[in-house]
């Protein structure tokens, strides 16, 4: 499903963010990408989203060559992924419902389908009763759950989560990770970038360890080891 082949990323200021990254991620897998801040986790995810281009190497998402994708095809690529970020990236002027519905509006779906699916997904993430609240009325954990609902709504092939618990307390962090696990159990591939040791150790899923831009370990049922 996701394949990185000898990927290197060097920024214009000559800083090397990633070196010779190679790994394969299959459909339905749950992979944690761990490393200290600055190890290259976010860069690795940006390459997958087409936000950046690799200096060397190839990246494949299914049969799409992401490393040479044209910018006009990027929207289509991103619609097959669901993204969750540390800072939630919710629209403050829209309710929880509208934030989730937005993705389906972008895809041009009809109002009836949107109403039905959004209600269902908000129920999955446990926010059915908060759907009319604005982001500033929600807790950090609730905001992240809205973000996850938005990431899920269009049934993406993969959920890419970049430090989703970075701004949350341990209790809410656990909730979010449990939600991601639940989504994975339903069949969605999950790629989680995190520097939270406790989360990774609880998950007991495959762990890719990044140190100074290189993958130093790839454990099928790994622990957080740096």
């Amino acid at each position, binding site marked *: 499903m996701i394949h990185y082949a000898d990927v290197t990323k060097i920024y214009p200021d000559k800083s090397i963010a990633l070196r010779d990254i190679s790994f394969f991620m299959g459909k339905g897998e749950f992979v944690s990408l761990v490393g200290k801040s600055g190890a290259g986790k976010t860069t690795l995810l940006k390459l997958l*989203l087409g936000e950046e281009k690799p200096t060397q190497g190839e990246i494949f998402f299914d049969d799409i060559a992401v490393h040479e994708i044209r910018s*006009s095809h*990027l*929207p*289509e*690529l*991103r*619609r097959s*992924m669901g*993204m969750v970020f540390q800072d939630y*990236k*919710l*629209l403050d002027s829209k309710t929880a419902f509208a934030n989730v519905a*937005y*993705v389906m509006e*972008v*895809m041009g779906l009809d109002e009836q389908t949107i109403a039905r699916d959004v209600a269902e997904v908000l129920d999955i993430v446990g926010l059915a009763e908060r759907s009319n609240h604005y982001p500033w009325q929600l807790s950090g954990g609730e905001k992240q759950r809205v973000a996850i609902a*938005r990431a899920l709504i269009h049934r993406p092939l993969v959920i890419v989560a970049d430090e989703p618990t970075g701004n949350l307390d341990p209790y809410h962090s656990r909730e979010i990770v449990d939600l991601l696990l639940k989504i994975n159990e339903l069949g969605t591939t999950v790629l989680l970038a995190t520097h939270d040791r406790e989360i990774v150790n609880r998950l007991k899923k495959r762990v890719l360890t990044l140190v100074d831009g290189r993958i130093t370990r790839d454990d099928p049922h790994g622990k957080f080891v740096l």
Partner: protein
Amino acid sequence: MRDRSSTGAALIVMTIALFVVSSLYIFHNMSSFIVEELENSVDISAYFTETATEEDISQVRQLLAQRQDVQSVEYVSKEQAFERFVQTHQQDRVLLEPLEAVGQNPFLASLNIKAKNPENFAAIAEYLGTASFASLIETVDFFNRAPVIDQIIAVTASIRAGAAAVIAILSFIAALVAFNTIRLTIYNSRKEVEIMRLVGASNMFIRGPFLVQGVLVGIAASVITLLLLLLASLLVGGRVESFTGFSLGSFVLSQFFVLLLLELAVGITLGLASSTIAIRRYLKV
């Protein structure tokens, strides 16, 4: 409409820009009007001797009227000249008393000649001095007023050139201000656009609303500007007319569709161009 306050600011600035452009268009026309009035007020007069008959003067008049550079020739008889003087100075006894004391009409018959162009006066004056009927002419007052006429020609040329330059510079400044305000409006939406890009919205889906907003702001500003111009012509039109003779209200009404088209063209182009450039620059879309 996204972000009402930014859009409101863009609308206000665009309206000001269009008002400046329209005002300058009106000013250009007004200055042309004043210049033409100035040029038309200049004439030269040829005064005939006491012995010149009406028939002689009428022949000279015909010869002058045939010239390409002459616009009109007006005959003022001795009697008419006398009447005009009395009428003009009827309140001024100091000027009228000597006239009564003389007991006879001291004025000479004359032809008042208007040229098609102020530059033609010199040639006409020379003709009057060298033509076959030159002996019938007592005096030609052009040479006394030549410096004034030359000055008027120079001033009107400067006004025309100056007005064009002012129009160009101020229009450019107004457009730049409107452009930057719209750019700011789009810049304020960058967070929303980033999210739209990340969830897979197409470039047109992202661009479209901003482009439409740019066009709508241009149209709305055009309508408001036109209303403001009508209001301004109502409020100050009277004063402008009494000072310059230029009827602002009539001009705005007669040029209504020209002004509307001018504003729509400038407003929509500016709105669209600003949005397009800002989207490309700030939103990488």
